């Protein structure tokens, strides 16, 4: 009995491991780096976490079904470029990027790019589920195609000067607090609630944990996976809107390398790559951890050559923990089995 309680405690600890690491690192940084806890810096951390965070929600949802989405960063690039192309004036100086001359109203452009993201996500989902194409390579190729189209539209140039109404989400502040951070937090709360309480959330986990069993119990895995990619596409376009609002400038290489960060953040936050295990809340802790470390490395003015190696090591350590947890989990289940059997008597 005592041992069982002990196991439960270990399990809770392992499940919330990431928050402990986060707290310890935060204290460490706060003590050792002078400006780390200043208000501007903390807001900076959260700002970086917001765009990454929105992308990570999409990635987590797809990971829960046991798939990968490497196309999101391509969608970020395309949605920003496309939005700019619709909004800005045709360039007069040679060498600058050309707008379409449509000069669309921002309130029209926002729905357009969100729909674009949704449709692209849906198409990717269809390719993977209906045409049985390998998800990893499909999304990798999609990333390339999306970025390629962004390059063609922008002619490889920087596009700048998005209208104020468009920038509201990414750039505005409410009572000194960035809108993007508030929106991201709300999104996390909402999606976390949705995944834990709704039928769709249970479907996602069931499909990820065991597609055959999910099919046998009446779920439609193909539909669920398509849905997950569709949501991923929508959120990628949303993140694009947010990022463009903050930077007011875009270029086709925008968001390069973000895919890796989203996967890393999810995995660090306890989302299993095998599907079915993990939560959006944990992933958010992963996002905060990565943003915090990035920020701290910056403040400590660590040699930029080291930054990439350090990041790689962090991902490795997270993976190591994840792999050990996966080994440990079955033992817990096994331990409990006799108890269930005795209950039945």
């Amino acid at each position, binding site marked *: 009995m005592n041992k069982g309680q002990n196991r439960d405690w270990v399990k809770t600890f392992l499940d919330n491991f990431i928050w402990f690491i986060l707290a310890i690192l935060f204290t460490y940084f706060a003590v050792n780096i002078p400006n780390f806890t200043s208000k501007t810096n903390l807001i900076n951390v959260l700002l970086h976490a917001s765009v990454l965070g929105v992308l990570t929600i999409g990635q987590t949802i797809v990971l829960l079904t046991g798939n990968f989405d490497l196309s999101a960063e391509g969608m970020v690039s395309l949605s920003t470029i496309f939005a700019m192309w619709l909004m800005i004036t045709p360039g007069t100086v040679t060498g600058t990027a050309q707008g379409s001359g449509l000069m669309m109203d921002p309130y029209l452009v926002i729905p357009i790019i969100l729909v674009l993201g949704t449709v692209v996500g849906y198409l990717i989902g269809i390719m993977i589920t209906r045409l049985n*194409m*390998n998800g990893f390579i*499909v999304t*990798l190729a999609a990333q390339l195609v999306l970025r390629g*189209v962004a*390059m063609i539209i922008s002619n490889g140039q920087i596009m700048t000067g998005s209208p104020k109404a468009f920038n509201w989400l990414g750039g505005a502040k409410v009572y000194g607090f960035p809108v993007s951070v508030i929106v991201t937090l709300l999104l996390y709360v909402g999606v976390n609630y949705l995944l834990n309480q709704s039928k769709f959330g249970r479907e996602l986990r069931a499909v990820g944990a065991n597609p055959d069993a999910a099919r046998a119990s009446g779920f439609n895995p193909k539909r669920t996976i398509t849905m997950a990619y569709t949501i991923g596409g929508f959120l990628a376009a949303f993140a694009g809107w947010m990022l463009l609002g903050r930077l007011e400038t875009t270029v086709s290489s925008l968001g390069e390398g973000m895919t890796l960060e989203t996967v*890393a953040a999810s995995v660090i936050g306890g989302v299993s790559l095998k599907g079915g295990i993990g939560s959006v809340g944990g992933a958010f802790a992963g996002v905060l951890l990565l943003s915090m470390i990035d920020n701290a490395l910056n403040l400590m003015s660590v040699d930029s050559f080291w930054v990439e190696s350090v990041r790689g090591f962090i*991902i490795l350590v997270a993976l190591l923990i994840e792999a050990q947890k996966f080994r440990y989990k079955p033992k817990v289940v096994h331990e409990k089995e006799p108890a269930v059997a005795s209950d039945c008597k």
Partner: protein
Amino acid sequence: MKKNTSKLLDVIFENLIWLLVAASLIIFSSLSSSFRAPNNMAGLLYRSAALGLLVLGQSFTMITGNFDLSSESGLGLTAMVAALALASADNGGLGWEVSPFVAIVLMIGVGLLIGLINGFLITRLKMNNLIVTIAMQMILRGMVYIISPGSTASFFPKAFDWLGGGTLFKIPLEKGFFSFPVATLFVIIVFIIAHIITRYTQFGRNMYAVGSNLTAAKDAGIDSDRIVRIVYLIDGFCMALAGWLAAGRIDSATPRTGAGLTFPVQAAAVIGGISMAGGRGNMIGALGGLMLWSILDNGLSIIRVSPFWIETSRGLILLFAVFLDAVKVRQMHQRSLIDILMQSTIGLKDKTIVKK
């Protein structure tokens, strides 16, 4: 009768890559005279020799159902290690100026070490191969920057450059020479050796067994972890050879050597028919994939297609390749299901039931 047509289809499907290679060769040759120049033709594999070795290593890992995304940085690191040991202090090296053979042994050692670490993390610690190798890619690339403080090391001894940049023979033409690069021959030979290993040795058969059905392979007594470890060692060895070729060809190594190759490596292997699911594909097909990739690369830039379009078309080609792979899998699945039902005691002769 029907069986014959499906067999013919099989043969076409298996060799589709060579049809595509031939078609693209003919198209680009007719479009551009500089493409069909003998020097350009012989140089196709010479320019993508380093890529070819990475494709080879990737094919090994993919046949066992694993990935290696770290190879581009492995190439960079091995090339940089050799470059630092070889080049004089004036040219960005450490000033050791070791003999080329020591440098080659050194870089192969580094490559094997990378393979060993990858294999250890994946089989012993049960970490996800995809993310492990992505993390390794970042770590190794960081290490390249750390050991070479962001600078280029160049001018190596001739013996070192021979493999990557040397010429095997020259034939005088009306204008200049037709020179046949060593690297072209080397890549072809290495692919043939790999083909023999995978096709005709017990180890090769075990590789396919592990890749196509891990549980069945384990039940049959194959030590799958050992196979995967060896495969990653081979992969590390290939990285070192690729580093040697890359450094030798341009006679220098920069911190960015090999960066961005992961995607072409994956693409060439998949286009060449190596299945992402593991257990299918052969090395000769992978060579075809490599050739198709370098022909398109070379051909499209010779006929002056905008680089933005080249990037997009690459993605589309890859999508097409994955689509073909999926079709192939579905067909095989259906056929094996039919075969099983035909042989079963129920004596199901009606094939229409199976085809949903």
